[in-house]
């Protein structure tokens, strides 16, 4: 009972952020929000009126969440849009390519085929950044974490902000 009384005079969770943190989220809704954030932490050449394309390679795991998140959004004056395909070659015109878990068997080949295409690669398979991807979501945890291979990003002509690099659980080159 003493502990209970202590509890009533303490500061409880409050506010939208606290409510958000106390609930459990669909993994891919959160990853979609991360992806939207990643796009904003990269310096893109301005191209007013143009599109900034996010490619989804493989089976789309977002279930419409990414579409909802980018709807009506622009980054560096470019309207965000999504392109889906099961072939890496189809997505070479995208600025960002998310390599879905369904492609885990061929991540090496996909990254090789995107080399030189100036694409920010984001993946969720184990060892994605070690294989040459730029940003990889970590698996297995209760919170979404990510790793960055800054060298891979630089080789693709991308400059990732220092803030994002600080938040990554691991940064390699």
């Amino acid at each position, binding site marked *: *009972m003493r*502990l*209970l009384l*202590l*509890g*009533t005079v*303490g*500061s*409880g*969770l*409050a*506010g*939208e*952020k*606290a*409510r*958000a*943190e*106390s*609930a*459990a*989220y*669909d*993994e891919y*809704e*959160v990853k*979609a*929000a*991360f992806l*939207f*954030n990643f796009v904003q*932490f990269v310096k893109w050449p301005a191209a007013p009126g143009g599109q900034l394309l996010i490619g989804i390679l493989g*089976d789309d*795991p977002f279930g*419409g*969440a*990414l579409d*909802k*998140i980018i*709807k009506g*959004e622009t980054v560096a004056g470019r309207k965000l849009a999504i392109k889906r395909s099961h072939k890496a070659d189809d997505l070479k015109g995208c600025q960002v390519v998310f390599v*879905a*878990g*369904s492609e*885990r068997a061929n991540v090496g080949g996909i990254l090789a085929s995107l080399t030189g295409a100036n694409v920010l690669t984001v993946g*969720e*398979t*184990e060892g994605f950044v070690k294989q040459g991807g730029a940003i990889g979501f*970590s*698996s*297995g*945890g*209760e*919170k*979404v*974490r990510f790793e960055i291979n800054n060298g891979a990003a630089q080789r693709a002509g991308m400059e990732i902000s220092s*803030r*994002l690099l600080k*938040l990554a659980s691991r940064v390699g080159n």
Partner: protein
Amino acid sequence: MQYSSQLSAGQRATFVPAFFILAGSIAAAGALHAAAVAPPPELAQGPGTLAPQQLKKLSIEDLMQLQVATVTTASKKEEKATSAPGTVIVIDKNDIRLRGYSTLKDVLRDLPGMDLADNFFSEIGTQVAVRGITGNNKTVVLVNGMRVNPPGGEYFPLRSDFSVRNAEQIEIIYGAGSTLYGQDAINAVINIITRQPPASGKAEVELGGDAGFNFERNLYGSFGKVFDQARNILFNGYVQYHDSDLTRLDREYPRYWRGFRETAVARGRDPVPDRLDFGLNAFARLEVGGFSLQSWYRNSRRSSGEGYGHAVLALVPEARWEDSSWVTEAKYVWQITDRVKLDSTVTYNWYEVDPSSRYVFPLNDRQFFLNDYKYASGHSIAVEETMRVDFTSALSVLMGGTYTNYDILPKSTVPGGARPGGHNDILRQAGNFSYYTTPGDPASLHLVPRAVDSEFERYGAYLEFSWKITPKLKVIAGARVDKDTRIADPSYTPRGSLIYNLTDALTAKYTYSWAYISPAPYFDATYDRGDVLAVSNPGLQPETSKTHEFDLTYNKDALNFGLSLYYGVQSSLILVSDGALQPNILLDPVYVDVQGTQTRQLVNSVNSGKSRNAGVDVYGKAKLTRSFSTWFSYSYTSYEEMTAGVTSGLKGISQHNFRLGATWAITPHLFVTPSLVARSTPRNVDPSFLQGELENPWEANLHILYTPKECLQFYADLRNITNNHNALTQLTPAASPQETFSGVFGVRLSF
């Protein structure tokens, strides 16, 4: 604690519903201003409170704090199902909507490892055997983590008064769960998580109703609203009403019911069995900052003659069983630091059998005995403190302490019907049974109180570590100790689990856990059944269970697959005094008259022997195309019990269980969900008048959902569509006929 006992029966009957009626009135008023929410199932949001459009407004630092958990029950924290110890199955709101689940028993019927006997026994309703072990008293049922089992240790009354329509998801944790949940968590822990209202602040209102065959009718309403996001002030609640005449079993199984018909006609009664199934369930939850208050109420009324064999207990209008539960919990969540959280909980749990409840059976060739009134009541108040400390992102500890005070009057015979006014009054009203040990000797008279009052306390403490040693390997180790003031020795229930992520998609788990069943006051019931005289046994000890379990789960893209292998040993079994069997018999026959013409066998509930269960559950879900998804499970179980030198097997349940279901989105607005439950012939059942009905019973169901608009849904729910005649076990070893075809057609509005 004293509040309930000071109220009259009538006051008690009306007080709790009045609370919910008030809540419903508020809900109705709110509906006038409500905006359209509740998208169709395929567009439903995830379980978090913020929609994707709101998630994108969070900073990346905030996003990193979000839990992408799917379950909370296995470890009392949010975690992925694959990271939780043991077998974890989640049924979410889309499953509930698409498969047409209305009450909890509908959900359990489709789960692997479960074997349901719907028409089991009035006091219990539907019996759920889990992995070969029977007994609704061996499963802990939670609503948002609040324990709703009756406090006296009764078999969980699983009837039509436990709604799941407002559930966000239902988490089922198989196996021994006493380390975190204490007594009675031998078979499973089931947690119904209710929906959170939308964070947008718009009121969410749902109203629905359906009706169909057998005069079945259901009404449902829910309301939820976040009043102040910044201060986290929200309310949600629901009310569900159910009534049905049930199917005409006398017409479907005429040979089985012949005995009742002849018994009824001989006594000038209607030969058509008078059956009914009424259920009312209501829930309300208020959150203010870190404080929450939630209350859950259920009331059920059924014919008391169900499931006890033809012509033994009569299905006449006087034969009714009615009981109610009301559980209220106040909780405060205190986030002391980023790494330390304290939950403080007080829970009040009340249960009562309506004093008009009674059994009716033949008294002689021309009359029924109408004075076998039953009564039970009890309440408990529990205080629990749970602290969670995250030392690092890989190492955390959960520790807790509980105290519960019980005041229980277990099921008793009260001639003339109880007039509740406190336990002592009931003890006086009930009086005594008397028996003689020597015929013709008045001095050999013994008196046995018909009712007993059990007041006791229970203390518990638990500690569990969770350590992610490597990114792939997690170890969980914990233990609990409970001390019951009625029992000399404490109960210890440790748990250990190794969880290894073989790949991103494949996880292996090994879990070893202990559990125990409290010697519930319910098993101290005294009664004269005509052949046995059951008395209480104050020396009854806990029944214990030790379980090994190996799990393999595979989750990749649209495929979820699970395999569970288990082996358990249960010791010091609590054998209930249901009949004149060893080792329940206490003495040579006793006599209820001094002349010694009427004999009884004196029995009580005892601990004896042990049992083993072992088996495998295979289950999965797959989304085969954009418009077609399916689920399946296959379960094999074996059970062996050794008591009093006798070895017996599965208790009237099936060794093989198979489920298959699919949802086909014919158009974006029309969903068709057929499902099948098939089992092998139940073991060790006396077929009685039923023969072919026992062989490989199966049942096909169909749910059709049409959503012409986001706020409007029509549905048809058809059960046992081929009108199969099935029989399963009941309280006695004899087979019991199960319900035949039934169905409802309904409409649901969401605002």
